[in-house]
């Protein structure tokens, strides 16, 4: 008989093996899905994981999609380490994109090196304010942050839709709900010429490193960790729980807001309704898969960025629905949590206890 038994010490090996195991299980399930759809599984996996990266442009696109995932995931890591269940990166991202666009359009005719920083700061502030709202609802009114951040995501999306259908709508845009194109002074410089990759990727990598340093080297990081592991110990040590909570939300919001700002000033160059294919939600998977560590997050962001490209590739090459991206991401997270159970537990094979003689 199989039974679960709590390990005396959490398994460090399993901590890092779990994401790999989850990926393997996802791939096996993926092959099953391809076969069920009557497609060649090897061909399907090749189109999903390899074909998108077959040239320079593919790698540039990977970096392009990693940038927002890294920024959002770095911010969420701060919250999750402190056990603050911020699901609002999508909303922070959208508000960042919206207000960066407002500023970029306001400064339309201006040129000068100060335009772009202002636009990016506007995005960061907008994201931070949006996150701070959820933080204050938690610290002042004890509202569950999962519910408030989800609601704020929907509100942010509707605000953005209102903006592109109303005040920010390009009057010469043939009726499409989108803003005018930004002036060149409000666009992020390219990282690799002739591709779409911009310096937003550097922001993302920097954010991942900064969060790594925050938790490895600073007192604030230590306080946040303690707050997450044992709230009462944090209170006993006199750590300012409310201020730490608000700080975690502000940082998460600022980083996700920067991601939104980078998206509109980078590859898009204007505000459109579909500014995010769900980066803020996918970033949650990045954080868990990346074990809340800088290196892990970078690797996980690369893998999940690839799932967006793989989905598009399968749509073009094999006429499969693009939604396969979401399916792969969901499977990955599901398997990851299942495998994570074995960090704390191990399977024991036990013989069923024999009936005691004399009983019954």
């Amino acid at each position, binding site marked *: 008989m199989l039974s679960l038994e709590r390990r005396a010490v959490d398994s460090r090996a399993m901590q890092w093996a779990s994401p790999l195991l989850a990926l393997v299980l996802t791939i096996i399930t993926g092959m099953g899905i391809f076969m069920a759809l009557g497609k060649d599984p090897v061909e399907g996996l090749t189109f999903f994981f390899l074909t998108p990266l077959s040239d320079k442009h593919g790698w540039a696109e990977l970096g392009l999609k990693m940038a927002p995932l890294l920024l959002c995931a770095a911010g969420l890591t701060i919250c999750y380490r402190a056990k603050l269940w911020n699901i609002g990166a999508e909303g922070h991202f959208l508000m960042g994109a919206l207000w960066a666009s407002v500023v970029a359009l306001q400064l339309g005719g201006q040129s000068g090196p100060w335009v772009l920083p202002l636009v990016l700061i506007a995005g960061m502030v907008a994201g931070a304010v949006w996150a701070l709202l959820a933080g204050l609802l938690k610290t002042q009114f004890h509202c569950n942050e999962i519910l*408030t951040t989800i609601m704020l995501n929907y509100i942010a999306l509707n605000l953005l839709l209102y903006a592109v259908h*109303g005040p920010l709508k390009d009057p010469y845009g043939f009726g499409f709900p989108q803003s005018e194109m930004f002036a060149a002074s409000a666009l992020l410089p390219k990282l690799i010429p002739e591709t779409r990759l911009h310096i937003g990727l550097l922001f993302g990598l920097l954010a991942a490193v900064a969060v790594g340093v925050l938790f490895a080297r600073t007192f604030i990081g230590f306080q946040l960790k303690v707050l997450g592991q044992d709230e009462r110990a944090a209170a006993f040590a006199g750590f300012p729980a409310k201020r730490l909570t608000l700080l975690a939300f502000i940082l998460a919001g600022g980083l996700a807001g920067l991601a939104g700002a980078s998206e509109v000033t980078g590859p898009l160059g204007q505000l459109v309704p579909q500014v995010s294919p769900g980066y803020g939600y996918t970033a949650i998977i990045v954080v868990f898969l990346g074990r809340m560590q800088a290196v892990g997050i970078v690797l996980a962001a690369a893998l999940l960025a690839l799932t967006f490209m793989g989905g598009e590739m399968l749509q073009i090459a094999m006429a499969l629905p693009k939604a396969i991206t979401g399916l792969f991401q*969901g499977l990955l997270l599901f398997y990851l*949590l299942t495998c*994570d159970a074995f960090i704390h537990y191990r399977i024991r094979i036990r013989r069923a206890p024999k009936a005691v003689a004399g009983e019954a």
Partner: protein
Amino acid sequence: MDSVLITNVLAATVVAGTPLLLVALGELVCERSGVLNLGQEGMMLMGAVIGFIAATSTGSLSMGVLAAMLGGVLMAMLFALMAITLAANQYAAGLALTIFGIGLSSFVGAGFVGQSIDGFDKIAIPLLSDIPVIGQVLFNQDLLVYGSLLIFALVFCFLKYSRGGLILRAVGESPEAANANGLKVLPVRYMAVAFGGAMAGLAGAYLSLAYTPMWTENMTAGRGWIALALVVFATWKPERVLLGAYLFGAASILHLVLQGLGWNSSTELLAMLPYVVTIIVLVLLSWNPARTRLNTPLSIGQPYRPSK
């Protein structure tokens, strides 16, 4: 406002509140057993897509409803495997279920977007439906609305008067004490989670087979999350879930009413209303943490592993 308008608004409120009522009742039972399942949105979406596919391919709406409930239960079992058997963090497992459900439902339903179906018709109950206002609001609705009221009555009586309800609450308040008294904690929790899945699936089917008889990606639009807030609002009491579901239902059709009254505001701004209302309600309810703690099932969110 004339009485015709009032009647129409109230009837639309009941319709809009029905999916919320169903999913919130399921979650209420689940939470009363001590399990917080944040996967409602994912289970609802699966219910909506499976119900729609089953109904279009068999031509039978009741087959659609059955399949949707079964789909919801299967999804719930995935959650139970993680959160109950493997004692994973319930927040993370529920989130995973929602993300998985969003992906899987979009994938499965991709070929069905844009199709429509003849959904449930309204059935007027003789005599009762002739009562002014109330007759049209409560007794001229579709079969699933009547079903949701029946389920409400059953859940209410189950929790309040039955031995099973007592066991469920005991498990939710103190699994250790329940276990010591010979109650099987994990099977009870499995059943509660399964019921939650069936209700979420049914709520999803209500959306895709009655409310707007078609399938679109993410058509639940956060209703699964609103239902979670609704359970908090109801302080885990079914009669307040009923009231709350219709209040939230009213908030979600308010934009139609305002537009009907000649308000010329943007659709997008008015579409924010249910979410804003949810936050306001959460604030009003949660500002006194002592009161919330008083009503919350004690063991909620904590995995339980019987020590042998």
